[in-house]
């Protein structure tokens, strides 16, 4: 009996001591963070480094990270529906805007942005490339998405191959067509590699051409015009004619209409095509496929004579972070995100993933120098797909991309495309 009493006292003392020590060192808090990256990706390695370093500074905060891949929003939707706590989400900005921000379930960050950043110098808001923080704000200007990974769009090529052949980077559409003709007639390389199997890759041509013809916002405005009349603007028809000309003249690699991704971009890596219109994620995607002497080069979409868009108008699309407004660790999330968006931490991300950062002061990776420089000099920034995917995703997918694909691949004429767009735009708005 004495022995039992002795052990009970020991246990009681141990429990009390643990509670006292626990209270003294402060309560540990956990941020549950789900990321769009897969664990094997270089970007995920950068995030793991951030978490490791943050833990050294703030041991009382745990970051419980899940690398859920590009389907992260779907997975978070299911997880939260099943009662799993998720505080923070990392995903493409336009997806976060549609899923969290417009649904009114995201944590508004304006107050935090108007306070100093992690290193305490200047406002946190001012540490980002101008315009990027506000890019996915609500219509009344509230910001919930903290950007980090900046993407743009343009042509990618092998500098060495181009130097050996004496090909120069085109600045105008006429120069571009002349270059394609030269490549086609003087080499056994196809001028352009392209993956026709992806509707949103086919659209890269259309929204870039439309931007150069009409400036940013023309596609979005046409989609918003409930009468459908805006599609009657000759520029929309001209854009399709320009695209079809590339096929008709044999500038796009033979057989590309039967390519399923990533077959097309593979021909840039293998040196069988001279260039590929793509997003700035391309060098990272192909880094293990290109030969050792492949030297990445990139340039912005050329200017089109008679158009109002300039070569200095650049696409800016962002991957970012957004927190749920029912989180119990709001201040901790803000602190962690401030840490993630310091120049040093963003440089880790840039170096590892060959991506650009939305944070000022980070270097552009060598593979993206051409487009990086164009972004630095950009006078106007416009969103991917001219903002249509972010603003009206169903219209974008089931009307615009559907009909554009038909026109791009030559299944319908430019006139039929315009007619379809007018009719289906009217029908779409009637149903809303």
């Amino acid at each position, binding site marked *: 009996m004495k022995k039992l009493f002795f052990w009970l006292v020991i246990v009681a003392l141990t429990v009390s001591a643990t509670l006292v020590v626990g209270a003294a060192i402060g309560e540990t808090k956990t941020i549950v963070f789900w990321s769009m990256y897969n664990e094997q990706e270089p970007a995920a390695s950068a995030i793991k480094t951030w978490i490791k370093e943050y833990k050294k500074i703030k041991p009382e905060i745990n970051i419980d990270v899940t690398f859920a891949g590009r389907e992260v929003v*779907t997975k978070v939707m299911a997880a939260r529906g099943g009662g799993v706590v998720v505080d923070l989400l990392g995903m493409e900005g336009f997806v976060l805007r*549609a899923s969290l921000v417009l649904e009114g379930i995201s944590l508004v960050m304006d107050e935090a942005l108007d306070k100093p950043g992690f290193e305490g110098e200047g406002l946190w808001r001012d540490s980002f490339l101008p315009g990027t923080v506000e890019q996915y704000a609500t219509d009344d200007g509230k910001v919930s998405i903290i950007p980090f990974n900046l993407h743009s769009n343009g042509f990618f090529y092998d500098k060495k191959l181009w130097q050996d052949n004496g090909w120069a980077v085109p600045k105008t559409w006429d120069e571009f067509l002349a270059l394609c003709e030269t490549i086609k007639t003087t080499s056994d390389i196809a001028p352009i590699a392209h993956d026709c*199997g992806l509707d949103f890759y086919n659209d890269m041509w259309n929204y870039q051409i439309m931007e150069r013809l009409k400036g940013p916002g023309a596609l979005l405005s046409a989609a918003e015009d409930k009468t459908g009349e805006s599609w009657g603007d000759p520029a929309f028809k001209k854009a399709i004619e320009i695209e079809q000309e590339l096929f008709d003249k044999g500038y796009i690699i*033979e057989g590309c209409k*039967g390519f*399923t991704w990533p077959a097309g971009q593979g021909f840039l890596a293998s040196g069988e095509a001279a260039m590929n219109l793509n997003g700035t994620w391309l060098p990272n995607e192909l880094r293990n496929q290109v030969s050792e002497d492949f030297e990445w080069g990139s340039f912005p979409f050329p200017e089109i004579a008679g158009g109002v868009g300039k070569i200095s108008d650049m696409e800016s699309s962002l991957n970012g972070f957004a927190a749920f407004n029912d989180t119990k660790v709001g201040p901790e999330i803000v602190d962690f995100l401030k840490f993630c968006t310091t120049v040093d931490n963003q440089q880790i991300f840039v170096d590892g993933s060959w991506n650009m950062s939305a944070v000022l002061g980070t270097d552009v990776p060598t593979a993206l120098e051409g487009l990086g420089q164009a972004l630095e000099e950009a006078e106007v920034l416009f969103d991917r797909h001219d903002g249509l995917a972010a603003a009206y995703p169903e219209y974008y997918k089931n009307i615009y991309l559907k009909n554009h694909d038909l026109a791009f*691949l030559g299944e319908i004429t430019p006139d039929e495309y315009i007619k379809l767009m007018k009719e289906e735009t009217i*029908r779409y708005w009637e149903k809303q």
Partner: protein
Amino acid sequence: MKMEKRRAYSAWIFLAPSLILYLYLFVYPTIEAFRVSFYKWSGFAANMEFVGFDNFLKLITDTSFLEALKNTLLLLTVGGMGSFLLAFIFSYLLGSGIRGKKVYRTIIFFPFIVAPVVLSIYWSLLVYNPRVGILPQLLKLLHIEVLSEFLFTDMSHIFWSVLFIVIWSKVGFYLILLMAGIERIPPYLYEAARLEGANELQMFFKITLPLIKEVLVIAIIFWGIHAVKMFELFYAFGGIFPPRALWTNAIYLYIMGFGKRDPIFQLGYASAIGVVTLLLVIIVSFIIRKSIKREIYEY
């Protein structure tokens, strides 16, 4: 009486675990899907707006849904006919006393056990690819110029090319089912028919087909359910996103409900697609059951 009651209780006790799981994992979500299909709901926020039959009415005029439905029905009918025709031909050949029957049967069955994603990558990048694919290269080697330049995976042909893969990969499973039925038929029936002067075709229609009717009905229902729900092979074939020409009901449901790459989050509408798909499965099963009369043959 007491004994019977005790037996009934025992049966319920043993059935309970699977029954609870079935109710929780199938019946409850099905009822919930029916309920959600009457709402406009993103799946994220708590606010659900009751819209009655609006989601179902929208389906009728949604050309993307109608295209997906057309693909699903083509898959069901053409895919089914292709699979069963080939399965019957193979079962006839394998049943004709050919040497190495088990080896052939294993070879035909093998694609069925390969993951659909692997099949997709293999066929899209290594077989059909217009520039480096095995098929165009082989056709070029054989100097069949017209076909060597044929784009098996362009917008107009991709559905049929993938349907071929479906048939190729599923035929082994249906072959096994049919052969199991055929091998149960006593050989003396065929011997007697032969003595009476029946040819192979007559024996197939008069002996084989009637005597494997039970197996055939089960196999066709399997196919029907599988075809209406088919997702993975078509979805994976396009790489990061399936081309529109490959959308089935199940793929369209996923795109509309869960914002695959594009942020369309219409879980209410997607549930309506799910409800229609479920009804389609029920109707298909009912039609198959009713159209193939069950007769009992004893031998």
